[in-house]
């Protein structure tokens, strides 16, 4: 059974769209690669919201903000239990983004502040806040790894842990 994460990161007012675009352009590929490496994330996307608009939709370079960056995923298992693994995989992304997030700078580097970072994620996860904390609609119950194992061509999957010298 998958679980939802709908992480809403409020950006410090006055941060320009150009600045945020630059950060996202640089780090979103790393975010996606890191999430994929953990092996529990079905899908993930980072989206940019403009809170000055009624429908929250940004209008490109003409957006004024304040902004919210939303990171939305569906993942297997218990996120909290794997928090150190996530930090190991994508901590650098958050180290780059959090200085632009309200209340985020104090958490950097996240690897030294894992408990506080974990609490911050919980506080900003819209999925955990009533009335959003309802069960996820799901079309299947298989885990990411079960799906990969069942797919044709799964032989392409890495077979060894990426441990140095292992």
């Amino acid at each position, binding site marked *: 059974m998958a679980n939802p994460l709908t992480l809403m990161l409020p950006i410090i007012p006055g941060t320009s769209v150009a600045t945020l675009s630059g950060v996202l352009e640089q780090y979103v590929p790393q975010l996606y690669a890191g999430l994929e490496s953990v092996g529990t994330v079905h899908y993930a996307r980072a989206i940019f919201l403009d809170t000055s608009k009624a429908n929250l939709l940004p209008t490109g370079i003409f957006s004024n903000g304040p902004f919210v960056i939303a990171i939305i995923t569906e993942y297997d298992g218990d996120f909290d239990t794997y928090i*150190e*693994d996530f930090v190991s995989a994508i901590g650098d992304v958050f180290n780059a983004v959090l200085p632009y997030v309200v209340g985020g700078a104090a958490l950097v580097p996240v690897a030294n502040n894992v408990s506080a970072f974990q609490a911050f994620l919980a506080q900003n996860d819209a999925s955990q806040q009533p009335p959003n904390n309802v069960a996820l609609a799901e079309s299947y119950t298989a885990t990411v790894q079960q799906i990969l194992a069942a797919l044709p061509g799964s032989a392409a*999957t890495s077979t060894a842990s990426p*441990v140095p010298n292992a």
Partner: protein
Amino acid sequence: MPDPAIDYGDVQGTILRGYRVDLARHFILTITAAPPARAFIGALVDGAGGLPRITTAARWTVKPKCFVNVAFTAAGLATLGVTSQQLATFDAGFQRGATSSTTANMVGDVGTSAPANWIGGLANGAQVHAILSLWVDDDPAVLESVTAKLRAAFAGAFSELSAHDAHALPDNKVHFDYRDSIAQPTVMGAPPRKAKHNAPDDQPQVPTGEFLLGYTNATPGVYSVQPSQLSTNSSYAAFRILEQDVAGFEAFLVQYAAQAGIDAETLAAKVCGRWRNGNPLELVPSGPAPVLPNDQLNDFTYVDTTNVADDDTLGIKCPIGSHIRRNNPRNQAIIGTNSTHHRIVRRAMPYGPRYDAKQPDNAKRGLIGYFINASITNQFEFLTSQWNQLATFVKSAPGPDPSCAGNAVFNISGQDVFLGVNDPASSSLTVAGCGANGAGNKAVTGFSRLVTTRGGAYVFLPSITGLRYLAALGTTPTG
């Protein structure tokens, strides 16, 4: 990452050194008066008043007659004067404690293993403040004489809830008759092991910060607490009393070997990942054989895609759900990161009389000791709740041998036979064979729990600096 310089004299010895002794006694203590308790801690650090000095990780030229370490629960630290604000900086699991229902459900301490059933006063976590541990080489008289000194010294400061003895069995066996004490993580910067005891593994060294606060860990970050005096060179441990049902285990082997189509000793090896003489299935897959030299016993990995003969991605030789593979998957691809991030140091010894199959008895016997780590949450609890209790932590991985179809995901089931809850309705151990989607597998199912938790506590092992800090609390302004 270069090895850090560790001040061994500031580290409680059991964290970084195996004492290799035959006798141990663990005192479960409640602080009844904080000022004399602090004074006792100070006396232990200095070896004052005829007390043995707290054993550090510093090198010794003559092996000591006894070894002493002390650890505190969160309730114990609070009683000594550590503030709630400071305690809030400690590991989340440590703050929660071993007897909390959250912890118990997470690590499988349920049913007969539930904290409410624990012995020796451990059921009431709030009254468990400290564990004082004494190890001696092999002389019971030394154990008793040092015990008498300790009891005289802590009287009036602590009340003794219980004391628990342990003793080594011949050939480092445990009650299930497996040779133990083979595999331990190699910690960066730790004192080197003596050659005759060394069983090097084929794994990366584990960063120091996985076992000591204040050093870089595998994430990489640094675990720390406040105040700083309690941080660097301190560690945590899960103290556990694990009762082993030896008669039940032997009966399990006989009953379920037929289910798997193998003999009882092979099933024993499949359950553990090692033959009972210590030989790993990975290196000796087809029979116990003569015991390998120490330097080979632990020198293996599970995945070698460049060499089909050495590869065991699918767990054909050593089941992916075997005890040693669950608790240290080595280079098996697993969800999260890799095994280096979740290692523990084991310092446990058997307790109770050795089981004699010719004269079966109901005596209590098992393992008692510490599982040491710098993060109870990310190491002991992760390992216990995920790798021991689940079968979904393995990444999709076919083996490199085109003649042996399969995928690692389909070749693990149930929980660890030794450390799982193992409800007969769902208990399962997969004995893997070649075949797509697990078609070649056999499974042993329907067995019961064989190891019952009889006690536990989450404890903090302060550095020597930290112990001095605790000893001085109440006499100087706190930091």
